[in-house]
């Protein structure tokens, strides 16, 4: 599974799926804010672990762990960078505080990826588009968004067909010098772009022929409705945010330190 599978909507039914996307977005942002507010290991570990039961309730555990796995590379880079900088700035000694700090930066990153992964896994692009619309973004925005999502698999398929067609004419994509390999992608890119333009033209024709732009304001067949459970989740999230701010400024957080060797 690639990193994209961790972001792709999984069509299952779960309590998490049914929560209004706008509320879920706010909750993800709150997790993000909390991750930034704390540099201590304990709260960050709590923040990450608290998401795990949510993931299981949402029935997206396989995909969620896959998205964490694919962010591993970047996480390692963050860890190493922080460790190296800390090492160099403490007279070339790997101190406990450097290690601890590097771990917490890495955890912060992973927590961020984790929370937004849950968001995308449990929210259909349709509902995302609706959320954009109902949040008073111009219709063009949500239309562009949903259309883009709609055509991602089509474009991916087409790219593969173009690669197949050109390889059948002797194009070898894995041979030659670095420069040659880049040039070899032209026979793939050009048809891809040309077809994308042609496709946009056909889409525009079809849209016009179905009266796109006929009236200044559109109506909508579907709409998102905030229900009690959405309000509950929102209130709980905001409460946690408020409580965390209080803790941040008033309570001493027990320090966990990573020992050096």
């Amino acid at each position, binding site marked *: 599974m690639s990193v994209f599978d961790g972001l792709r909507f999984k069509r299952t039914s779960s309590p998490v799926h049914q929560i209004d996307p706008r509320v879920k977005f706010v909750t993800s942002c709150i997790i993000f804010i909390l991750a930034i507010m704390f540099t201590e290991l304990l709260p960050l570990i709590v923040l990450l672990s608290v998401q795990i039961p949510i993931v299981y309730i949402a029935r997206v555990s396989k995909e969620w762990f896959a998205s964490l796995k694919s962010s591993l590379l970047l996480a390692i880079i963050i860890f190493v960078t922080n460790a190296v900088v800390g090492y160099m700035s403490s007279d070339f000694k790997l101190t406990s505080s450097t290690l601890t700090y590097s771990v917490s930066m890495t955890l912060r990153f992973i927590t961020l990826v984790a929370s937004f992964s849950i968001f995308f896994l449990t929210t259909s692009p349709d509902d995302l588009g609706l959320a954009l619309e109902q949040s008073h973004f111009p219709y063009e925005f949500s239309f562009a968004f949903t259309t883009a999502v*709609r055509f991602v698999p089509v474009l991916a398929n087409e790219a593969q067909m173009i690669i197949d067609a050109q390889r059948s004419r002797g194009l070898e994509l894995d041979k030659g010098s670095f420069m040659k390999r880049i040039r070899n992608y032209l026979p793939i890119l050009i048809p891809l772009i040309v077809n994308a333009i042609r496709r946009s033209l056909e889409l525009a024709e079809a849209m016009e022929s*179905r009266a796109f732009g006929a*009236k200044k304001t559109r109506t909508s067949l579907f709409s998102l409705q905030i229900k009690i459970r959405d309000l509950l989740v929102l209130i709980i999230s905001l409460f946690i945010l408020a409580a965390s701010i209080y803790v941040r400024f008033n309570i001493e957080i027990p320090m966990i330190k990573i020992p050096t060797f």
Partner: protein
Amino acid sequence: MILLPIIEIKDLSYTYPGLSKPSLSNITLSIERGSFVTLTGPSGCGKTTLCRCINGLVPHFYGGEATGEVKVSNLSVQDQPISELAQHVGFVFQNPENQLFSLSVEREIAFGLENLALPREEMKERLEWALDVIGIEDLRQRSPYELSGGQQQRVAIASVIAMKPKILIFDEPTSSLDPLAATKLFKTISRLNKTLGLTIILVEHRLDLLSTLTNQVIVMDDGEVKMNGKPIEVFGSPLAKLIGIGIPKIVRLYQEIANTGSVTKRPPLSVEDFTSYLRSRL
């Protein structure tokens, strides 16, 4: 009371901006309400351009100057925006993939209705009606990407008829479909014509599947209308052979054997007609 033709074209000529040769030259024709017109001709003869002149894509989307007059349901195409004409003329394009932009069939069908700012109740009614007429209720939650070409075309048709136009234009709708799917699609289109009384303009090369469904055949070549009449007259004429349209094999076989002296000049269009003709000659 004489009913005016639903489409009236007088002396229409058009050149795409940037091209030197006109795509249409002095086209004059009229189409009666409720007709099932087949529009055919060699590639590049102007069939698609003519269709675009009827729903307003020419001149409003493609630009350029169209001279002459095109009237649809008594509205002048020159003077009406495409969004207005879209409520009178529905257009189903060749490539099913590129005319579906939503993530579910329901939303796709509702798209045009939302554009027209119809109230939700009416949209729901029309959605159910369109799904029922085309027979795709079981596809309502599906995403276009998952559907076969034939299914996608049906969704496109449903999305278009939901806007309740009186005229439907189909531009080579079966070009990517296999014969069974194509036959199914033509049957659906024929049903829309017979039971809903919709005027159909179908651009096609594969005439053998259509010959018994259509009641008017227009043949174009090089930007001009060369033939316009009943299928029997058009298919049987030597001019059709000269221009090079896909004359149904039944007709061609008839023409090959009719050389040996035959009374009837009306070629058979169906297998039954052909066999009765042959039996009558023996």
